[in-house]
């Protein structure tokens, strides 16, 4: 019996390239395992049974960019681009499938990446506050984690770009069916997670975090407009109120962040903090709530224009982040990632089509939930 793999496709006849994306949902991870997860993401690109690092770089880069692997606490995302057409799709799938099913995981490669100290900026730390020191990571831990994480039920496959419709699923099946059947699912016993906290910092990121399902285009679009209004661009609430009026931050942004259960809306301010951080978070929440109440239909038109530009990957402070590497770019690769992350429920055209029907009061409600301010995440980092 073939195993039913979640496979999604978005053929785009006008595209110049194709992209294959593989999203792996992370298993439950403690602090050390999360560090190993990030190392695993790096090590995958150092070579597979069929492709050396050189091959991956040259052969896999035919779509203009080399294969990429991004890791967050919730996902590992592999994306590979190739020239348009089914031949390109086959190439991209073969490279992606090799990275998932046949990585070499060489000891020296793991040791190298585990030993590499991660120089993280304040923004990196704000986005992924769970990142921890990887110097204690052993090859065995990384290999065990690979065995535990890379099981078919954790993996979704997606393709976007120019190729024949309904051809991707059979390709995936023929490429990884044997591997899928051979893989035994490894379930882990729930454990109390251990986290380290950081202190003694010069700069601080304050985050107001909330969650929303985002499983329909209309729900996602509503939250996108709310995020735009609160924290995308210099006409946003965070920029106008928190930076320009209060001088409390230099950098501020809203981020829509994918997690296993759906999406998080994350409102960040980065800067030097004077006074107790919890009080400052409460003040920010109150200021945002007051600003939301003053939004008008004229503002709605601006939110919509910015949201449309964000969906094209053409706005500089885009709140849609599919991976920790950066915001939505409008590439076919990101189309494939969005499709796989949302289990086929979201695409840029569908979200775009939902925007004109949105009402100001609904966007304000979504924004109020985002700015409600529970929980507050406070992350300190020392720089310079």
């Amino acid at each position, binding site marked *: 019996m073939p195993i039913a793999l979640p496979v999604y496709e978005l053929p785009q006849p006008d595209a110049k390239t194709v992209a294959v994306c593989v999203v792996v949902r992370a298993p439950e991870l403690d602090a050390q395992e999360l560090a190993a997860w990030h190392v695993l993401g790096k090590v995958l690109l150092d070579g597979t049974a069929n492709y050396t690092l050189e091959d991956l*770089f040259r052969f896999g880069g035919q779509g203009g960019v080399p294969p990429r692997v991004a890791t967050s606490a919730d996902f590992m995302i592999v994306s590979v681009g190739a020239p348009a057409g089914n031949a390109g799709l086959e190439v991209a799938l073969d490279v992606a499938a090799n990275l998932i099913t046949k990585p070499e995981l060489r000891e020296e490669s793991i040791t190298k990446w585990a030993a*590499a100290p991660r120089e993280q900026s304040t923004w990196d730390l704000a986005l992924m506050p769970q990142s921890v020191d990887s110097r204690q990571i052993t090859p065995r831990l990384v290999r065990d984690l690979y065995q535990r994480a890379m099981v078919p039920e954790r993996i979704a496959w997606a393709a976007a770009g120019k190729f024949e419709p309904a051809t991707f699923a059979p390709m995936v099946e023929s490429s990884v069916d044997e591997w899928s059947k051979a893989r035994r699912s490894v379930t882990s016993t729930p454990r109390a997670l251990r986290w380290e906290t950081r202190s003694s910092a010069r*700069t601080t990121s304050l985050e107001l975090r909330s969650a929303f399902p985002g499983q329909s285009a209309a729900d996602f679009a509503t939250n996108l407009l709310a995020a735009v209004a609160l924290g995308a*661009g210099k006409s946003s609430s965070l920029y106008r109120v928190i930076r320009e009026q209060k001088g409390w931050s*230099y950098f501020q942004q809203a981020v829509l962040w994918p997690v296993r259960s759906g999406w998080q809306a994350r409102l960040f301010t980065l800067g030097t903090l004077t006074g107790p951080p919890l009080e400052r978070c409460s003040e920010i929440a109150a200021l945002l709530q007051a600003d939301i109440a003053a939004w008008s239909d004229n503002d709605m038109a*601006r939110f919509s224009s910015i949201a449309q530009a964000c969906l094209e990957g053409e706005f500089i402070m885009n709140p849609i982040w599919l991976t920790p590497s950066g915001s939505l770019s409008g590439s076919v690769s990101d189309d494939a990632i969005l499709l796989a992350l949302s289990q086929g429920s979201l695409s840029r055209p569908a979200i775009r089509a939902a925007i004109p029907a949105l009402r100001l009061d609904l966007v304000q409600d979504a924004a109020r939930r985002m700015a409600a301010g529970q929980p507050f995440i406070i992350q300190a980092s020392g*720089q310079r």
Partner: protein
Amino acid sequence: MARAISTSFLLFLAAFALGQADVIVKAPRLRKTMANGVRAVVEQVPGRRFSLQLFFSAKGLDVGVESAGWRHLWEHLAAKGPSGDVDRRLESVGGYLVPNTTRAATRFEINVPADRTDLAFAVAADLLKPRKFSAPELTGELPILQQEWDLTEPDRVVFRAAWTKAYGAARPDPMGSPLGWASASPSGLSLLDRELKSARRVVVTAAGPHDLDATMAKIESLCGSIPTDDPVELSQPIPTDLPAVASSGFIAAKHRNWSHRESWARFVAAQGLRVIDRTLQVGYTPASSDGLILVYGLGLDKWKNIAAEARERASEVISDGRLLALRWASSLRSDASDTAAVNGLLLAESSSASLTQAVELMGSLTDAEISAALTEWLDAKPSVVLP
């Protein structure tokens, strides 16, 4: 009609030689220096976005890190526009403004959908108007600059150390310093505004899917009446409060100018090193002369091993370096905003170079030239700047 004469003449000759004289091919790029001294470049880049960029050249202006910082403070204030509504207007159509200050120039990047070039020019006209700044405006901006200062990231520290080692005070860090910002006065900044907006310092670039002649005509209309005042002399401000920066986190090489083959060979070889160790990074900001190429990143800790492996695999480093360098250039050329930025940064330093020339030059490098450059890198030690 001002036109890149040599390019269009060659295209004409080529068409004539092929017996296709009835096919008129327009040059993809136009350049013009106006009677008042304003310089402009417009270029075709396919896509949905139009990028109009204003550059205010810093050539000969920065006499220390503090005066570079004054340009940075001026950038913060001037970018709001005289009515304070620049961002709201642009964002209403899905556009945006990015201001930044580099060693070459202070730059206002206006990006809009390709069918809203009218708004881009209206905003540019506002940003070019003479400004006078008040004390409350200055003091209101200081906490924000202090926040920016506090958020200085590790990469920037490495860059600052490398530039200081390479050029000393001749090319000061453009961010400035807290004491330098605090020493700025409203009248001083208003004078700086006059100096930066003098026609001899203004460069305008545009890129996107647009009609080059029409865009150039609009730029002429935008800038044709900008006056050229007598130069303002900046005196050396109070001594620096910048801490001494020491870092061994780089190996750097001077990039002399855009027609210097050895400099581009160094750039290609540096790119190739990334294949030996993916944690290495290459930093380079386009500058027509006195630029800097940096190799930095986590791999430098193991530089001895990397250098040994790179010597063994020199032919791969060279061929992959070519590939990565050309990817870098083609990614810049495919984006309207990047194309306009590179054109402006070069022109702000009075260079007639272009990305196309850089690509052609890199493509013509021999393996021997890149190999020599690679040897220079591999013989160097961390914190060294190759002359």
